[in-house]
């Protein structure tokens, strides 16, 4: 067991540190440091542009998507180098938020299923942030039950014609491409009639409508497809094998979401250090300390769990279902942390204006964003099912629709 860098790791760290220090957009460092889940604002700047510029600069110097092969815009780095980079990138890493879906899910899926020429064409601009990608899976009728989706793809000559609707698609309003899961055969059981594609979001017939979220922000969208044409060459995997393709995506999704999700603990610890209660600093209060300690060990437990996963990865093991715990634990923790930070503020906890609220309303923003964290990328309940079934080997849920042709499955409850 060893935490020290090997000589190669140390050399890599030094190189990364020097480059970041010379190139990062330092003028935003303070604001990025202060930002938290639900609130990243750069005064007087368009965050999208700042993020894209930083990503491009990294890519040009060979620091983007470090673990991807060089020919696809990466650096061919080891998982540990990737961690070292993240440690050194610090608050500037928060600028990568808008690329997470592309880099974490779409990229790996393309890498596994696209043709060689396509990979060389599409992956480097994805790595460099010049092109943004989104993931078009969920539908009104298929969220947790992804395979329940209804968007149709019908073969016409060398093309496929798409009709239907997606929902909750993060970043679709600024995305250039997307990976799209469709139904190609409604006459077979739901998992057996799906096919995956990638497409240009500017294709005729694609209409993106931002949804206002419960938090008040608009990060996700409804996407409508009306006779959208996709060439067969943009199919990923075999016809009707889309379920297997999507499992690759979702496994990578858990790995990248689980590793990156914030717990809110560092923010809460700092807050309790600075907040003055009637009898003195909050952190000197017994009950506050007890709560803090409980959150502290969850946060450190997650941190070291992901280090164990990285150690396993670097020995050549694959990311397994046990990585579901990152999102499961951090998701509800960030929500509890936000509630507790508001509780400590008493009546004034309701105020969210940056001038009136403690730490500029950071926890209020976190509170409002947190419910989405427990849903996106698989709900808490789905994560627990995955752990119970795939890690502990318990029986799968009884699936009454398993052997029923898709077009015979009931579509409404309480009939």
């Amino acid at each position, binding site marked *: 067991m060893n*935490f*020290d860098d090997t000589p190669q790791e140390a050399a890599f760290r030094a190189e990364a540190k020097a480059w970041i220090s010379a190139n990062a957009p330092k003028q935003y460092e303070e604001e990025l440091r202060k930002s938290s889940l639900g609130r990243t604002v750069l005064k007087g700047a368009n965050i999208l542009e700042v993020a894209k510029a930083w990503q491009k600069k990294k890519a040009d110097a060979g620091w983007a998507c470090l673990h991807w092969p060089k020919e696809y815009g990466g650096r061919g780095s080891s998982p*540990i180098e990737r961690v070292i980079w993240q440690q050194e990138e610090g608050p500037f890493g928060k600028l990568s938020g808008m690329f997470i879906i592309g880099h974490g899910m779409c990229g790996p899926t393309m890498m596994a299923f696209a043709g060689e020429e396509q990979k060389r064409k599409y992956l480097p601009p994805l790595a460099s942030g010049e092109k943004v990608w989104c993931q078009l899976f969920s539908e009104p009728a298929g969220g947790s039950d992804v395979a329940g989706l209804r968007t149709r793809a019908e073969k016409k000559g060398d093309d496929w014609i798409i009709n239907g609707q997606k929902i909750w698609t993060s970043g679709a309003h600024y995305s250039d491409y997307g990976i799209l899961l469709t139904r190609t055969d409604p006459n077979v059981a739901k998992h057996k009639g799906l096919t995956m594609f990638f497409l240009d979001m500017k294709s005729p017939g694609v209409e993106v409508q931002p949804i206002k979220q419960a938090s008040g922000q608009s990060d996700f969208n409804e996407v409508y497809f009306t006779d959208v044409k996709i060439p067969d060459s943009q199919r990923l995997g075999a016809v009707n094998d889309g379920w297997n393709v999507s499992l690759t995506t979702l496994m990578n999704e858990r790995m990248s979401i689980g590793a990156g999700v914030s717990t809110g603990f560092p923010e809460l610890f700092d807050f309790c250090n600075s907040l003055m209660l009637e009898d003195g600093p909050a952190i000197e209060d017994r009950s506050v300390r007890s709560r803090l300690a409980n959150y502290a060990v969850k946060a450190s437990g997650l941190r070291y769990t992901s280090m164990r996963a990285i*150690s396993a990865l670097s020995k050549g093991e694959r990311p397994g279902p046990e990585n579901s715990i990152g999102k499961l634990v951090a998701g509800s923790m960030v929500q509890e942390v936000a509630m507790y930070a508001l509780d400590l503020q008493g009546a004034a906890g309701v105020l969210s204006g940056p001038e009136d609220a403690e730490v500029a309303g950071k926890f209020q923003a976190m509170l409002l964003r947190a419910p989405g964290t427990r849903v996106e990328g698989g709900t808490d309940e789905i994560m627990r099912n995955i752990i*119970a079934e795939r890690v*502990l080997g*318990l029986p799968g849920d*009884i699936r009454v629709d398993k052997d029923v042709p898709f077009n015979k499955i009931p579509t409404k409850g309480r009939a």
Partner: protein
Amino acid sequence: MNFDFSDEQKQMRDEARKFLAEKCPPKAVREVLDGKAPYDKALWQGLAGMGFLGVAIPEAFGGAGAGHLELCVIAEEMGRANAPVPFSSTVYLAAEALLLAGSDAQKQKWLPKIASGEAIGTLALFEGKGNPSPRAIKLQASGGTLNGVKKPVPDGAIADFAVVAARTGSTGRDSDISLFLVDLKAGGVEAKSLTNVDPTRGQAELTFKNAKAEPLGAAGDGWSILTQVLDRAAVLLAFEQVGGSDRALEMGRDYALDRIAFGRPIGSFQAVKHILADMYVSATLARSNCYYGAWALSTNASELPEAAAAARISATQAFQHCSKNNIQVHGGMGFTWEFDCHMYYRRANTTALTLGSLSYWEDQLIDRMRKKNAA
């Protein structure tokens, strides 16, 4: 960076697991639980024979000289087997105190006996209610003798010697406390077994009446040595707790696969699956915190105080969580004496208190994090 045990260490874990599965089945634990013996002597000798008692004791003092990572691996297996032997008091508390503060002669006298299974040791710290604190120590040392009462002392009734925390000053500072070594068989100490929640881990009251004692470490250093001993023991005991958590999870999982209700294995009900998934989560977080503790312990890193507190809290929570929910998953069977669930439940809830309670360690953790932050 490599955040895992080495292949050799894992091999040692397998070896210990195999040995304990054979020599320490639940039936053997029950002999002690039912009061037929104060501890499992045959197992104790077997552990000595395997070299497990002296794993972290240097070869010069009769041990295997392997190190603390190896001891962590063994500790996990001791917890998994719920072994009814004075391992933690002898190996984590007494031996660690000697290693940290003992003179060469003291080490030479006791460590080889620990490694060979000839001597059982313990730490006499508490004097009734409360958590570790210099103020709570009233037992008086003067002129090389001790007078006062310690309780509860883990394995105190079967121990051959004890490291005793005593008061040697009255300035009101931590430096009033010094440590002493007492040969419990030499007279002057009366031991009385106390009834306790987990009979597989005996507790005693030790009454010192002009008992002969020799200083362990410099006068006035007692509290600072104790803090270090407690931190080290916290990591090691946390590994026992993780072993116990894993075993409780495994028992629950196996039962959920076997037991049929409403025509299905109960493990197919989501409510039951989710209980087990949450047990897995708490055991995994604890294990990861423990690995960090193991690293800090084995390298004597400056992070040890914080890492030890985190491992201790996390593992205490996990073991309590897993052992209580293991009973829940077992239903009525889980609440019978005949099923083993309660043995882990007892052990989880007594281990939670042996080095100071959860709230004590919570307080310690935040203190230590603040210090680090301020530094």
